[in-house]
């Protein structure tokens, strides 16, 4: 039975999506939506049971599943297995993914107006892809699921978008393929080097042994992985697909993209750059720290200039991922805990921000904040519920954003990585992001809700119970993580000491 836990988790969405596309389920919107919601809830309960019964004291791989096809491994002669495994980092991100997909499917109620079957089945395929990436134990299974999510995203961007859909979708897929090319090169090099070093063909990346290889090749592999994953978690200069995609996609897709897919890129960096290649991470840590600081400052400054709500939130995601980068480059226990905590907390915060932006877009028909004014008159409850999410994005204590930023900054400041520009000066520059982030977040909040009501919005009604519950769920998560972070930081601090190469000090 142990053998089938993870494959059921990973493959059930795609099986359900095939059922959905077949004529078994009728083409009425209500039936499609309700059946997808039911499936999502069942899947979420399954994931929740896995999360609750997980053994959090075991720091290695806890659940391992080896999928045998007709009683043999996949391609045994070259060592490819279809094996899945989860450990603590993976299971936390899998739980996060399930919650976010559930919220996205619930939120699609009024936002999608045509081709429901195609839409829901594509979202389920993306869910399979994400769960597969997070639980892969095998180099090529990892790559298979990595590539699997590109085509559904492309189709969704083309069919349900606004604005210049074709150019944006084309830019998205070209950038992603460019990144996948580098990742494939890196994976192949790892596979071949493992073979040269140990003489056995195996692509289990937890057990790769490339210790006797010359360092120069390892540098090249590291850079390949950094570029490939850096397109996903946008590192500035590889990021220009992100603002366009976010501003033109529908809200549930923006939520999935920003809350899950960026984190999957971060997961890739954590696994490949930090665990597999951990002895040369120290050499590149200064570079990653400088990239992180550029991310933070450039992302925040770009966000101030924008006029489209979703673009502002997209740039704030870039900024948040910059905090992740400086935290992991610090190589301290507090820093790495803060980095992983930032992944989880930022997912909820950006989901909340995009939900609010989506509701405003549906009610007002425009995303330009210069034209929307004074909605506080008509939608006081939305204004009230958006306060915790706005404050969490800024980094106010007792909400989860503060814990993540606080731990990351302490970790980065007290790190012992040697850099050209001193680590302390870099962190001090990054601290300015606290001030700059509140400028643009307040700009959104005040332009939309404050002021005199624009006459054309006289007919708007307040948000319904459905959307209220989604926002309240997100707020509860944000507040819970802010007040009781020890439930996660306890586990993560032990995990980071054992699995990552911490150098000295705090």
């Amino acid at each position, binding site marked *: 039975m142990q053998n089938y836990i993870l494959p059921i988790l990973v493959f059930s969405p795609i099986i359900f999506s095939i059922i959905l596309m077949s004529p078994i389920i009728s083409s009425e919107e209500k039936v499609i939506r309700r059946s997808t919601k039911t499936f999502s809830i069942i899947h979420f309960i399954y994931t929740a049971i896995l999360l609750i019964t997980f053994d959090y004291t075991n720091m290695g791989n806890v659940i391992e599943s080896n999928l045998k096809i007709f009683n043999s491994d996949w391609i045994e002669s070259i060592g490819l297995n279809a094996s899945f495994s989860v450990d603590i980092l993976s299971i936390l991100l899998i739980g996060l993914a399930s919650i976010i997909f559930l919220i996205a499917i619930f939120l699609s109620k009024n936002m999608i107006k045509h081709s429901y079957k195609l839409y829901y089945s594509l979202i389920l395929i993306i869910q399979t892809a994400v769960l597969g990436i997070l639980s892969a134990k095998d180099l090529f299974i990892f790559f298979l699921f990595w590539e699997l999510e590109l085509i559904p995203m492309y189709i969704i961007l083309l069919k349900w978008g606004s604005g210049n859909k074709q150019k944006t979708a084309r*830019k998205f897929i070209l950038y992603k393929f460019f990144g996948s090319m580098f990742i494939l090169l890196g994976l192949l090099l790892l596979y071949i080097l493992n073979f040269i070093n140990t003489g056995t063909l195996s692509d289990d990346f937890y057990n790769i042994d490339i210790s006797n290889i010359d360092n120069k090749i390892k540098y090249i592999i590291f850079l390949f992985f950094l570029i490939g994953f850096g397109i996903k978690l946008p590192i500035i*200069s590889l*990021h*220009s697909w992100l603002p366009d995609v976010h501003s033109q996609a529908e809200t549930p897709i923006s939520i999935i993209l920003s809350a899950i897919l960026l984190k999957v890129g971060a997961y890739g960096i954590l696994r490949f750059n930090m665990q597999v290649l951990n002895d040369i991470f120290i050499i590149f840590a200064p570079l990653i720290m400088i990239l992180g600081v550029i991310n933070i400052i*450039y992302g925040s*400054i*770009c966000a*101030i*200039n924008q006029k489209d709500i979703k673009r502002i939130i997209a740039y704030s995601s870039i900024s948040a991922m910059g905090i992740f980068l400086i935290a992991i480059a610090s190589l301290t*226990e*507090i820093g790495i*805990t803060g980095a992983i905590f930032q992944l989880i907390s930022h997912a909820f915060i950006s989901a909340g921000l995009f939900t609010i932006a989506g509701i405003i877009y549906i009610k007002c028909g425009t995303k330009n904040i210069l034209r929307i004014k*004074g909605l*506080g*008159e008509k939608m006081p*409850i939305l*204004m*009230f*519920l958006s*306060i915790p999410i706005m*404050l969490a994005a*800024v980094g*106010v*204590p*007792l909400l989860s954003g*503060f*814990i993540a930023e*606080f731990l990351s*900054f*302490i970790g980065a*400041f*007290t790190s012992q990585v040697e850099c050209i520009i001193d680590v*302390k000066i870099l*962190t*001090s520059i990054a*601290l*300015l992001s*606290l*001030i700059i982030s*509140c*400028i643009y977040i*307040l*700009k959104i909040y*005040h332009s939309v*809700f*404050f*002021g*005199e009501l624009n006459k054309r919005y006289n007919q708007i009604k307040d948000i319904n119970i459905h959307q*209220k519950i989604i926002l*309240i769920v997100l707020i509860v998560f944000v507040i819970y993580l802010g007040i009781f*972070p*020890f439930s996660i*930081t*306890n586990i993560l*601090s032990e995990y980071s*000491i054992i699995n990552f190469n911490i150098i000295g*000090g*705090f």
Partner: protein
Amino acid sequence: MEFFVNNILLTMFFPIWISLVIITSVVFKISSNRKMTLLFTLISTFIGLIFSLGLFKYVRIPNTLIIEKNILWMPFESLNFYIGTLIDSTSTSFLMILMIVSFLIQLYSYGYMKDKRGFSKYYIYLNFFNFSMIGLLLSTNLVQMYIFWELVGIASYLLIGFYYNREDVSKSAQRVFIINRIGDCALLAGIIIFIYISQIYLNQTNTDILAFTNMDDITSKMVLSAYPEIFNTAGILMIIGAFVKSAQFPFHIWLTDAMKAPTPISALIHSATMVCMGIFLIIRIYPIISPEIFNIILLFGAITAFLCAFIAITQTNIKKMLAYSTSSQLGLIFIALGLYSIPVAIIYMIIHAFTKSILFLSAGIIEKKYNNLNINELGNIRENNFYLALYWLIGSLSLSGLFFGGFTAKELLIKTTHNTNCLSVLIIILLTSYLSTFYIFKSYFLIFEEKSISTNIKVNNNNEKSMNMPIIALCFFVIIPGFIFKLSDINYLCLISIAIGGLAIINAYSCYKCNKIFIPKLLYKLSYNELYIPNVYNLIESCFNKLFKITIIIEKYIFEGVNIIAGKITAKLSDYISRIQNGNIQNYVAYSIFSTSIILLSLILFYFIILEVN
């Protein structure tokens, strides 16, 4: 007594629980009763009041008894974060003031907000403010203090943006938030530097380095270490945080923006409680501040006290004048702190809290009755509102330090300054008290006494009991400390200050009679435009806006440009290469045979020459 100590956290949880109850009733549109809201809020504050009174008796001044309880919040291997409660004389005295003022202002708000929209929202924010303030006063270590420090700032921002329909309120709220944020950022930077220093110099002892009770140990160790510069940097950054929160020069600008809040909030947050947090911080981190930094505190306190009083003499809006007056009085409290005398600072702060609240609450009644806050347009109010004039008079006498509680406080301050032999500071204190007396009595005469040109239209005539009771209570609290003063302590400085006060009153009366102020035109202009500091802030803001527009250019031409160039290169390249395929079969045949022969030739060459086979 043990009951109070063990259950002190109840005082924190009652407000937040009531806040949540009101929130659910608002969000899910369950109808709410205004009287019940008020009652629950008052009950929670009253419970807090009883707790703080009980603890005050328990702890007694001077601080001989300190009780601390901690729970582990986030354990890491190298650094543990705790949350707990620290009960000593400082925190209990601040707590008592907070509870009294909070209770009275919550009662007053019922009458003030009775006919306005957003009643429930107002009480949610008020309860939230209560909760965060109590959390701040009971905090045991720097991190917990920082958490509640920011939360109090958020509560103040939410209340400033209360009237969301108005455009100027929106801009002011944004500005207040950003300036507060700058201070918080400085405080956070100071805390992080402090953690870093402790890592280097304490070498893994098991003490919690951030706790206030451990700070004496830390100082002695750090003084013996050889790097005081980093230590001083941390101290200066934390002091900047305190300055921003307590509206000292040059960060006092947010206090005038904060006057867009409803008047009871100005009384509660921006004169009595939140702006005293800077003082609280300095008292708590007292052991780790070096003497140079105390000189900086003294300097900035003196500058603020004088300059803000100077600006306040020409202001015509009552609330703006009272805002600058608050800044100025806080400057005097910082002078007291800079002279190492904490008890004097606490006493002055307590009396100032009560005095300013009386003035603000009376201004609230004037605003409700006449809908106008301009001194030049009001006048002759004393005829119909004798008690209002009485309250204002009591407040003025106390603020100027001539009578009642203010007299006691000011005398203590002057005596302390005299004992440390700082002549310049003494002169500044006397000048400030002259200016304070001048502007507050000018406002009294211009508002309440008869004027030839007075355009006041009475809006409503009801004398709310709930608005008058708190002011009466506050008046008692102000009058009583005035009689503690003993006659044997009068010395010549005391007489000089009374004389200065009398001179200022005569000056104010003459200004009222002639209806203009007798200072040179240049100084008048400087003072009326608030030393042009708002213009400086606007200039800095526009400079930054222009600077940030650089990234638009970078985004558009560099990053998008890379995409466009890549696309164009690919298109050109494919254009060239596709010319090979010209549809002419003979060309294809020629190409294929040509390339095959080259491959074969190279294979033969490879075989014969490189492998050296004959």
